[in-house]
């Protein structure tokens, strides 16, 4: 039996092609990209050795600090909002709507699958201020507030990005946490009810503690996705005004393709990878505590 299950030829046929593609497309480029961090130049004009200049530049570059700041600010805020709203939805599905929640779940989930570019362009129009107010400004004007040039300043543009991304991912976290809530054993809730726990005390003493593992994984998933944010920012603001809404990913993209500096671009990509590595380490730490991941 061992011999059949361990047959080398079969393993090579089944795993070989996948491993080959994976190695060529992911592993080799990762090492290669790390090598680029010591060079300057690009694919079209060639490369020259640059020592550790890319790294010294990294630590003094105000643009990197700004981009890193944006990424962290965005990731933290969005993670909190996604998980809080998602948890609210999950509680609504599980305890209020109960069996009739299927249709609501399906509707609220829909924006998750709509292409990011389409959503970003829609939000540009919703928050438009010139030549004509979009829906949001029309509402503000109607309740007596002035219209705002939403995408014209860094702070308000940041707000629009956050609103947009919460809007489109809320349904996703709703369903993710909902499935977690369904896994709470029925008899625990039942016995708590028999002991007289109702409403908020049932939530605080039973439901919340029991859903901590899935909340933890949701938070990690969310951070993992949000520190890589690119599409929504690129399509909505293009990083602007100026570079006020530029995350690391976009700064890396600009450095490489607008300023043709692959070496420095790779250095920024390395920073990003290290951030992802830290988050992944957290996932593994969480996995030991909890078998849902």
């Amino acid at each position, binding site marked *: 039996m061992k011999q*059949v299950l361990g047959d*080398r030829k*079969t*393993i090579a*046929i*089944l795993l070989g*092609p*996948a*491993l080959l*593609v*994976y190695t*060529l*497309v*992911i592993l080799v*480029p990762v090492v290669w*990209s790390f090598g*680029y961090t010591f060079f300057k130049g690009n*694919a*079209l004009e060639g490369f020259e050795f640059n020592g550790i200049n890319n790294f010294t530049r990294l630590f003094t570059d105000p643009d990197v600090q700004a981009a890193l700041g944006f990424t962290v600010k965005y990731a933290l805020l969005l993670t909190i909002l996604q998980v809080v709203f998602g948890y609210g939805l999950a509680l*609504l599905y*599980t305890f*209020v709507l*109960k*069996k009739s*929640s*299927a249709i*609501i779940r*399906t*509707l609220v*989930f*829909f*924006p998750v*699958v*709509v*292409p990011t570019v*389409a959503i970003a*362009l*829609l939000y540009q*129009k919703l928050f438009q201020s010139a030549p004509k107010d979009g*829906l949001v400004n029309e509402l503000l004007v109607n309740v007596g507030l002035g219209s705002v040039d939403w995408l014209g300043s860094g702070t308000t543009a940041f707000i629009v990005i956050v609103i947009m991304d919460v*809007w489109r991912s*809320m349904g996703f976290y709703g*369903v993710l946490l909902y*499935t977690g809530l369904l*896994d709470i054993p029925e008899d625990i809730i*039942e016995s708590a009810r028999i002991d007289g726990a109702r409403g908020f005390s049932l939530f605080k003493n039973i439901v919340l503690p029991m859903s901590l593992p*899935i909340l933890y*994984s949701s938070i990690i*998933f969310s951070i*993992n*996705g949000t520190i890589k944010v*690119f599409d929504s920012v690129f*399509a909505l603001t293009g990083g602007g005004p100026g570079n006020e809404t530029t995350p690391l990913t976009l700064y890396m993209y600009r450095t*490489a*393709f607008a300023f043709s500096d692959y070496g420095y671009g790779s250095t920024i*990509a*390395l920073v990003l*990878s290290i951030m*992802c590595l830290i988050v*992944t380490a957290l996932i593994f730490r969480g996995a030991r505590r909890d078998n849902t991941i």
Partner: protein
Amino acid sequence: MTVTNVDNLDRTSALVKHDVGGRTPAPIRFLKRIPVLIVIGVLLVIEIYPLFWMFINSLKSNTDFLNNPSWALPEVWEWGNYVSAWLTGNLATTITNSLIATVPSLALIVILGVAGGFALEVMVFKGRGGILLLILAGIMIPVQMILLPLFTIFFNLNITGSLLPLIIIYTGHGLPLTIFMMATYFRAIPREVFEAATIDGSSMLRSFWYIGFPMVRNAVITVGLVQFFLIWNDLLIAITFASNRSLNTIQAGLLNFSGEYGATDYGPLFAAICITTGGILILYLFLNQQIMKGLTAGSVKG
């Protein structure tokens, strides 16, 4: 890492049995429901109305859009906007490009990924754990880390003028998550099944094809849907490797269209967004349960 078991998405909530229905009279029960109804109403308006708003604006002429409130219905229903979006937006080309990039990569991902997951989970060999760990690492690597070397390689191979780079990258980038998800699905099948088949004289390749593959058919659909959305909605790889106008995928094409005409041709821009969204909506209407299940199971991708 993931695998929040979402198989029971439709299981009637077990937590609900204690509904005290019956005891309270009907009108009071209705009053109690009002806050809930308001919450649901607000929720649906927030999530769905913007999509409807986009649709009504896709049917307005420019003067109509500029002079009337944006929530008003169109004065004249300009279905011609869809025609001009289709023609000026090059939608036929971009949709074809997206299909050319998506279909082969999806097929490759599924075939290679299912076989790889099977080998890693069912077969027994030294270094299995190491390979699995290596593949897990691939899930977390940001695309930015592989972008520049790949660009150099494809540039030197002289294939940057085709959609081949997209197919190659999508395949390689989709594999880790697929292998990982498939491995967890194969873990659920008792190994005895394959052992019995072996005793009956089946080779492992045969067992894979005639027993393993059919047993995870539903999982294959789930995994395929996850990868479909990741590839179809990708922007970063598409704008890097298919920046040439004639190679634009649907996302890149839409962005370019908006850049060139978006500030003046409102109706056609809205129409182009509607067309992009509409195709996905149709898919979602048929497969929403499976899509929700798949995307949350693949959530490690964020």
